[in-house]
């Protein structure tokens, strides 16, 4: 260990929630109800997550997201977003979840930083240092846990701390009056509006959500091709129609919602293309569980179909996008039929003029922080790819790293709310704020609701899945697989042929640079795994994800510069 004369700026909190989406918000509400101090970190400027990407605060939007499917999550958002007793840290990126340093704990307050002006050498830190047991990751709980001495009436953000916030000049909360807990369970590297700092937390709730699973096909890197969710975000958050004539292609029902929103906003929709054959979709929709419990969603879907038909928008089943073409920007897209076995029939194609293409083939979990932290993961293709394992309290294999929302399976926003609540109870239990019996009682309703929602989610995942081999069929050898490093599928295949010992995505990355660029493999990882799996005759889950390393998102070097 090299001791540095200059320590990083350190803030502390009791519970750090990563992600201000439905699950993070639901957890925050429950944690506050039981007196836990809460800090929420999110990359966006406002709460809501991707599903409720809000317009800028400076806007006023009449009748924002009127569709019923948003009702549940909107209630959760309104319940907490104005709360002043939560330490909100927006426009902030968590770069890593690290083990606290045994060399830093006592000097946490003694940083030479103009953001921190107080010394936090308080009782409770020393025993942990002496025992050298800060490292609680995966090895039991020794060494963290001053929860017992924490003053539950003195929650974060409003406590009379003299420690000026390192991130946005606000109070840091839970240090105050309660004694800085020795080292905390985790140390987050955070890059916020005021630079880089550490946030030490007794418990972390990881609720990072998901992003669109990209399909690679000739032309998918052409300007104008984007995720359908990206298009939707322009409409609902920016109140902006990001093009003129849209073609939406994929397998997820979200396409219908976005097509409807685009039409309402006055855009043209060239077509909505589903990989599923029509019969397949209807069979699932008529599943008794779906019909009974989710009649509202079904009703809404049928309204959307009617509106699309009225607007003359073709909804085409059993087809997939196979290429996007244009000189500098998309000018047209080609779709091709898929037969009953899921094979693309390139003799049956249709071409649509359009200046934007949205692709929508389900979602991938934002699993990088869980992986970086060393949490055990497992692969479940149509539930979001890499999911984090957890116990009944949604605690990951890493002690005091809890999980909520899509990271345990892309089950949708309503399920995310319940997961947030269960994880919050798990955290309260772990912090000693509720006992086991209370915890089980508190979580009972949420568990019950979650199991219903998950059975619906399982059906939806089944309904929304493209044919398993679709990605391998749409990519040619000449298709760019890794956008950032400009690596084509053929180049990866050649490397695999030349280097028989390469069995994992990570080994392929090391040799070929695939996944080494700015997006850090988020956009290519899934397709890379499929290519390797095919070459080696295994399931993509056996190929593994790319290794995630801090910083999990690129950071300007300036953030690391020592302050003079």
């Amino acid at each position, binding site marked *: 260990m090299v001791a540095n004369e200059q320590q990083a700026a350190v803030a502390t909190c009791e519970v750090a929630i990563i992600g201000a989406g439905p699950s993070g918000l639901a957890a925050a509400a429950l944690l506050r109800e039981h007196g836990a101090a809460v800090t929420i970190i999110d990359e*966006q400027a406002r709460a809501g997550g991707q599903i409720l990407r809000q317009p*800028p605060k400076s806007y006023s939007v009449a009748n924002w997201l009127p569709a019923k499917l948003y009702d549940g999550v909107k209630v959760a958002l309104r319940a907490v977003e104005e709360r002043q007793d939560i330490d909100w840290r927006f426009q902030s990126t968590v770069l890593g979840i690290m083990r606290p340093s045994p060399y830093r704990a006592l000097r946490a307050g003694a940083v030479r930083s103009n953001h921190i002006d107080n010394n936090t050498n308080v009782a409770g830190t020393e025993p942990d240092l002496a025992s050298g047991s800060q490292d609680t990751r995966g090895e039991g709980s020794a060494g963290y846990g001053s929860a017992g001495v924490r003053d539950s009436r003195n929650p974060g953000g409003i406590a009379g701390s003299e420690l000026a916030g390192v991130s946005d000049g606000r109070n840091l909360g839970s240090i105050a009056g309660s004694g800085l807990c020795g080292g905390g369970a985790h140390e987050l590297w955070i890059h916020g509006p005021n630079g880089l700092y550490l946030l030490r937390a007794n418990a972390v709730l990881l609720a990072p959500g998901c992003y669109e699973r990209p399909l690679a096909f000739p032309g998918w890197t052409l300007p104008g091709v984007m995720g359908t969710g990206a298009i939707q975000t322009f409409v609902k958050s920016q109140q902006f129609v990001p093009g003129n004539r849209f073609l939406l292609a994929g397998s997820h029902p979200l396409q219908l919602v976005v097509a409807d929103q685009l039409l309402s906003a006055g855009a043209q929709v060239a077509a909505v293309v589903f990989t599923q054959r029509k019969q397949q979709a209807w069979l699932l929709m008529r599943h008794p569980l779906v019909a009974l419990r989710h009649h509202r969603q079904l009703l809404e879907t049928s309204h959307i179909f009617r509106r699309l038909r009225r607007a003359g928008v073709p909804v085409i089943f059993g087809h997939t996008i196979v290429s996007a073409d244009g000189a500098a920007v998309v000018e047209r897209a080609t779709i091709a039929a898929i037969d009953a076995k899921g094979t693309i029939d390139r003799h049956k194609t249709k071409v649509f003029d359009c200046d934007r293409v949205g692709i929508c083939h389900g979602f991938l979990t934002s699993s990088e922080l869980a992986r970086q932290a060393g949490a055990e993961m497992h692969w479940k293709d149509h539930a979001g790819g890499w999911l984090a394992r957890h116990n009944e309290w949604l605690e990951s294999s890493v002690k005091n790293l809890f999980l909520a929302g899509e990271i345990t399976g892309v089950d949708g926003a309503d399920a995310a709310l319940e997961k947030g609540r269960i994880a919050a109870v798990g955290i309260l239990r772990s912090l000693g704020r509720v006992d086991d019996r209370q915890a089980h009682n508190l979580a009972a309703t949420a568990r019950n609701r979650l199991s219903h929602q998950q059975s619906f989610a399982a059906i939806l995942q089944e309904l929304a899945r493209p044919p398993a081999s679709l990605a391998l069929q749409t990519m040619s050898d000449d298709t760019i697989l890794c956008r*950032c490093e400009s690596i084509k599928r053929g180049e990866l295949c050649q490397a695999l042929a030349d280097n028989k010992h390469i069995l994992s995505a990570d080994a392929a990355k090391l040799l070929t640079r695939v996944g080494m660029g700015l*997006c850090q493999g988020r*956009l290519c990882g899934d397709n890379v795994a499929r290519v390797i799996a095919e070459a080696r005759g295994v399931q993509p889950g056996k190929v593994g994800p790319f290794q995630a390393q801090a910083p999990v998102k690129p950071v300007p070097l300036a953030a690391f510069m020592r302050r003079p």
Partner: protein
Amino acid sequence: MSRRITLGVVRPAAVNIFVNGKAVEAYEGESVLTALMAGGVLVMSRDSFGRMRAPFCNMGVCFDCMVEVEDGSSRVRACLTPVRAGLRVIVPDHN
């Protein structure tokens, strides 16, 4: 073309950002990406292979909307960066 929705939306007073030195109208709080696209810019950068990079995810994941801001000394994700009056942005292939 790309355009802002106005029906039922009240925005703050317009401000200018400068794209390759030229004034483009935008609104405080709006993302730089939206302002650029509303101003007719879709290509945010050219990468080291000379390929055009245009927005893909609009949520901070793909890094395809990285643009040079101010004097070119820093690059930011346009989708995560709010507009402020006078912001200078440099994009390729745009006059």
